[in-house]
């Protein structure tokens, strides 16, 4: 069984009190039998952590066969689009992460929409936080999905504790929305998401190292998936998303 974790973290960020260097995640991946993980920082570039992209790049360079970086960027920053382009073209990053509570903007905010559309030019996926907080509610993704139908948008956590039904509903309505299973506390809701959306739209994620990847994997095992569903959720879905990412724009060569 091959497993790729589509949502994990590498960062050492004093203000949040979370110190997770790459070694912390690698150790937990080994314990859980996870081959690769998509990782991002806890803090956004350039506002909370000006060197976030460089930090992440250096961390992933230590484990190039194991860690796949997503750039976490504050869309309000004047240079957000440029930072994203540098992250994908120059640093080889594979996607964008936006945490709405951290950047104080809902998914339908104009600056978020603009940055998502920029990511879509590279076919780069955009991983969003989703949950019960005021800027992270699943129904807020409807407007974004309409304005950026070309983008691949992933709702982390499947809507948190009390908005899992909403996360599934909004994904049913828009084909460009996917969910990840990270930290969702309900195995039966993961099963329901697979039944209603199809296994091809559900991605295994752990939100490690804070959330234990082995426990998150046990959750998927509890769901009782077919071999094919398991392969899609644990590996193939995220790999096919990542394979579509291009590191230069059409008509433009590498920088």
């Amino acid at each position, binding site marked *: 069984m091959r497993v790729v974790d589509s949502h994990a973290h590498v960062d050492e960020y004093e203000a949040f009190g979370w110190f997770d260097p790459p070694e912390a995640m690698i150790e937990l991946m080994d314990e859980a039998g996870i081959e690769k993980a998509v990782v991002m920082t806890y803090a956004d570039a350039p506002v909370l952590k000006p060197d976030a992209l460089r930090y992440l790049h250096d961390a992933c360079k230590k484990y190039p066969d194991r860690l796949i970086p997503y750039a976490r960027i504050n869309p309000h920053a004047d240079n957000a689009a440029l930072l994203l382009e540098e992250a994908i073209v120059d640093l080889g990053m594979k996607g964008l992460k936006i945490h709405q509570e951290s950047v104080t903007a809902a998914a339908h905010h104009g600056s978020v929409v603009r940055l998502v559309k920029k990511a879509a030019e590279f076919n780069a996926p955009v991983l969003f936080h989703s949950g019960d907080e005021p800027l992270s509610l699943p129904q807020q993704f409807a407007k974004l999905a309409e304005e950026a139908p070309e983008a691949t948008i992933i709702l982390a956590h499947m809507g948190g504790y009390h908005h899992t039904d909403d996360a599934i509903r909004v994904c049913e309505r828009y084909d460009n929305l996917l969910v990840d299973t990270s930290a969702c506390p309900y195995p039966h809701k993961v099963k329901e998401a697979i039944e209603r959306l199809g296994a091809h739209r559900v991605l295994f994620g752990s939100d490690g190292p*804070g959330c234990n990847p082995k426990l998150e994997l*046990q959750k998927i095992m509890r769901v009782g998936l077919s071999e094919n569903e398991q392969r899609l959720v644990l590996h193939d879905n995220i790999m096919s998303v990542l394979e579509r990412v291009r590191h230069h724009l059409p008509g433009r060569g590498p920088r």
Partner: protein
Amino acid sequence: MIIDGLTIVGSSINGYRLGVEELLASMNSNGIDKGVIAPVQPKTYRLEPQNDAVAVAQMRYPDRLIGFCRVDPRQGEDAITELRRCVLRLGLKGLLLHPMEEGYTINDPPAVRLVREAGSLGVPVVVAAGYPWVAHAQQIRSVAEQAEGTTIVMSHGGQINISGLAQADAFLAMQTCDNLRVGTNGVYRQDFLEECVEAFGPERVLFTSMAPVFDQGFELDRVSSIKMEESDRQYLLGTNMTRILEEGARSRT
């Protein structure tokens, strides 16, 4: 000895349901020896018959089930009367307060009065905790300060927030009040539980599944996944709840 510190039995107005026999089957398949059972809020809105049903289940399975009552503080004096009836006549061993489902704020005076009364009766209180507006950790801290003689268990690790933004408040509440404990169900980030064990000792963290809202087996997996001394894990799994109940029983005699 594994004790699940919170399950909710009956047919809830909120759409979930767990029968006693179904719970016992789940406990058997997960290797759980005993379970705390508390009632749902039923479609009738009347909690008294639900408390009676919990008492009957406890009598029927005294070696497996530990009955807690559920009372709505908005009933005022009647709530106090019902708590006393449940403890002194029905032999129930604790109190569940669910501010979110009943619709009150945990640190409103009637709720504080109930929590203090539970302490006087020698029974612990489990609060369905972490719900913003009604049962936030700092609201529960305020209750705990006014009811020092009552042991209060906060479900959900005292915080329901999948960004981890409520963890600091839950941690601070635990730091402030020795009579607070955290239950493990649904906790975002296992390292929060690890930090609680490290900072407050394994005596203040309890296995709670809050089934059927959460999956009992998966919640037991959550406790197993906490990185801690194996010799200390038993505190979470059963010793802590046993001690809380024994201390209460001693104070009643």
